């Protein structure tokens, strides 16, 4: 009989379909894992409501567990508590940087109009002299930046709290 801890360990082999360097554990989208009437329940919380990766993640989780010989598993999508970028692990942040995506930084109040965009270090050259090109990026969770120093255009994983 496997334990919830072992199961969580297995899920470290499931990567995020949009950002394949991150595992779903790094991303912090896996919540409680527990046994309910002979079935393993894996709670999954979306990063953004419309994140199209969620269905794929569910399929990948079940396939991975199947591969490990666990057939009695179900993914439960939950919304509360709402996911926050604080749940991305330190290891996950490091992987993002190496992949060329700037990890989330603590941002001041985002609702203020024309507020100074967050100061994000360039994942390539580490310069702080960067600028936001667009509030919206290639996926719902990212904004688009460019480095003024090395000119590298890059994605910034937006802080969500």
């Amino acid at each position, binding site marked *: 009989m496997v334990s919830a801890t072992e199961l969580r360990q297995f899920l470290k082999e499931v990567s995020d379909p949009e950002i394949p360097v991150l595992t779903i554990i790094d991303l912090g989208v896996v919540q409680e894992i527990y046994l309910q009437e002979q079935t393993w329940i894996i709670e999954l919380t979306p990063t953004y409501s419309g994140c199209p990766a969620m269905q794929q993640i569910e399929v990948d989780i079940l396939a991975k567990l199947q591969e490990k010989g666990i057939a009695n598993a179900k993914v439960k999508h939950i919304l509360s508590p709402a996911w926050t970028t604080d749940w991305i692990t330190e290891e996950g942040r490091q992987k993002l940087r190496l992949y060329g995506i700037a990890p989330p930084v603590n941002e001041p109040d985002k*609702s203020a109009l024309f507020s100074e965009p967050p100061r994000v270090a360039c994942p390539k050259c580490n310069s702080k002299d960067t600028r936001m090109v667009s509030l919206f990026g290639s996926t719902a969770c990212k904004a688009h930046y460019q480095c003024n120093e090395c000119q590298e255009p890059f994605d910034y994983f937006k802080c969500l709290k």
Partner: protein
Amino acid sequence: MQESALFEYVLRLSDDSLILGQRLGEWCGHGPILEEDIALTNISLDLIGQAISLYDFAAELEGKGRNHDQLAYLRYENEYKNVLLVEQPNGDFAMTILRQFFFDAFRLPLYEALMQSPVAQLAAIAAKSVKETRYHLKHTSEWVIRMGDGTEESHQRAQAAIDHLWRFTNELFYEDANDHTLQAEQKVPTMAHIQTQWMATVTSVLQEATLEIPKNNWKFDGGREGRHSEHMGYLLSDLQYMQRAYPNMEW
């Protein structure tokens, strides 16, 4: 009875999100600049995502075994309860942004209030969606100010959009016996409360944008009762095409 009032309430929220998400999706590949093309479709994706959560909850309340796809794609026009504002055509960029701004300024205080609802699933959806909506409102508010306080042409286009869309804004605060039932149980906020906050946001942004609230206060409604503008039929024929042509197809 209680469940059916809540079903109707959640369905209205879902339909607003879905129909506006569909409209924004029409901009895909047609945005005035690449960044804005991406922004509009990102907002669309958030709205459709919120619609999925809301339809799932509505389906559960209804208890007839329908799923979110059936609610989204397999109803007749008069069964959609979205406000007329969200089904209005995209028009030019100013029209799209003003429509979105009026909607975001309404949705944000509504979600903030619904986060306090004792209906747990509704509060959870609101808590999830409020963060996304705050981001949308910032984006649209900034555009309204840039356009209104921009060039002569951008100002004129933004004002024309306001003059055209204003007649649809009052319906955002529509209430009927259904809402009153839920309000009496303190499950949802009163619309007067939301309208006050909406008006404060709209007034301050338009003022900074040097744009004016129209004097003409002609009000249109009907969407909440399933009576839609001519545009809705065309929108639905696009939206529903795949499910009508290939029933029960899955992506």
